[in-house]
């Protein structure tokens, strides 16, 4: 990280050009990017820049959220999202409690609403939740006053992942406006893809979805003309032609029982991001992957570790972006 840190540093001591204010921020919850304005996203990036400086210090801790309690509630496994939120909260001096459904009263049959009510009664200020059911965090906001951050709900949305993806792209490309972003893979089951489509198009990028039609979200193949910035190209070489940003998605092997693919081997043949396919994109194109990577399935190891790959940078930026979001949420009013 240290080596990549320098190049994104703004000219030393420079003031931001436009006056950015937190009055742009309208959210008490973060559920998806469909209701984010470009100004809000810019504001998050701006504060994430300051948080990156905190992360570069020998002592990566500031007292900002002292006395605040942040609870992570995960009904699905996670490595980076949960750790990233926990680190972000701890760097800001919040108290963090982690609850996994598998080791909680959920196994005794406690409902989501009851569990959330308990967390609120315990004094949580922010609940970061992941749930296998699309829409679960929206239900949570109906019953609770605390801020809810969606850390992934079913196939629906993963807004903080999309924000860190956008931030990582912005750090390399300056602006997202006019970029050609190609999302390859299991879009049907991907909350990351959905949130990224909202975020990328909000910031003025064009999105090309590349996958077999069976892995497109239901209906999108027919309705995409309602969404002029989004196009569909099932041929990977055509899709990658002239791309600035490539997002490879994890093939969700656990969700492939429904006969959506003839075989994994065929999928690899047709859709794996390989070096020769990557060469169709612009030479300076970025390769992103939300992780965890199925190496040799959706992406070849050579590409995953090539100089254009920013997969580990995404993880590092995730902490800064989540620190910015927690900071903004604590000041938000319901």
């Amino acid at each position, binding site marked *: 990280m240290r080596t990549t840190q320098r190049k994104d540093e*703004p000219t030393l*001591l420079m003031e*931001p050009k436009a006056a950015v*204010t*937190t009055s742009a921020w309208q959210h008490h919850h973060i559920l998806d990017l469909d209701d984010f304005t470009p100004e809000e996203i810019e504001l998050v990036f701006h*504060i994430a820049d300051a948080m990156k*400086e905190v992360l570069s210090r020998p002592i990566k801790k*500031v*007292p900002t959220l002292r006395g605040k309690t942040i609870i992570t509630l995960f009904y699905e496994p996670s490595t980076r999202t949960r750790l990233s939120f926990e680190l972000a909260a701890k760097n800001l001096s919040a108290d963090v409690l982690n609850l996994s459904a598998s080791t909680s009263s959920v196994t005794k049959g406690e409902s989501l609403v009851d569990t959330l009510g308990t967390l609120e009664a315990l004094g949580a200020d922010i609940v970061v939740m992941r749930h296998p059911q699309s829409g679960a965090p929206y239900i949570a906001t109906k019953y609770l006053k605390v801020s809810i951050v969606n850390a992934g709900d079913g196939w629906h949305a993963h807004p903080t992942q999309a924000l860190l993806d956008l931030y990582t792209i912005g750090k390399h490309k300056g602006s997202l406006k006019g970029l050609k972003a190609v999302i390859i893979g299991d879009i049907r089951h991907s909350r990351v893809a959905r949130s990224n489509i909202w975020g990328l198009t909000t910031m003025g990028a064009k999105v090309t979805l590349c996958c077999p039609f069976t892995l497109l979200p239901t209906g999108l193949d027919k309705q995409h003309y309602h969404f002029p910035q989004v196009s569909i190209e099932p041929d990977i070489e055509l899709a990658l032609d002239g791309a600035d940003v490539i997002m490879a998605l994890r093939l969700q092997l656990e969700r492939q029982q429904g006969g959506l693919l003839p075989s994994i081997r065929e999928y690899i043949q047709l859709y794996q991001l390989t070096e020769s396919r990557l060469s169709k994109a612009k030479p300076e194109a970025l390769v992103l992957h939300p992780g965890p990577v199925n190496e040799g399935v959706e992406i070849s190891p050579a590409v995953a570790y090539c100089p254009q790959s920013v997969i580990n940078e995404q993880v590092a930026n995730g902490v800064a972006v989540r620190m910015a979001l927690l900071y*903004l949420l604590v000041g938000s009013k319901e």
Partner: protein
Amino acid sequence: MSKKIIMTPEDIRQTLARIAHEIIERNKTIEHLILVGMRTRGLPLAKRLAAYIEDFEKLKIPVGALDISLYRDDLTSLNLQPVVKRTDIPVNIDDKAIVLVDDVLYTGRSTRAAMDALIDLGRPQSIQLAVLVDRGHRELPIRANYVGKNIPSSRHEEIQVQLEETDGIDEVAIISMPAAKERQ
């Protein structure tokens, strides 16, 4: 609302030149000196002071920028949260003499936050404070080492510092606003 100009561009120039001399006088060896400007307007002031010191002593003094948003004691009670900006201090501050630079010294709470922020970055040998205007009304036991101008003020008045770099004009004015909302 009435506005009275307290310092003209010439006043500000002379004052900063005088403070630069005082900093040199007080710090026998200025090799270990760092000027740290508190965002937003402390930063251009720190750069100007460094330019004067370089001019007088032929020695370049490092200038850093400090943002105190993450150290404020009033975050949840503010109507609008401050936008956190980057803290950028180009050198290690261990064993250095730091001169914190700000435009207005008022309650002292910003200075408290700035000292906490600095101490999180290392262990400076000393921290001194230079301000363009001291308007009184301290709420904490804090005093500036270098003061441009003492302006006794009422809490209902606003001290408005404008600088060429941030506002296009060099000017310090006192603005009386009857029943105005308290700032800071």
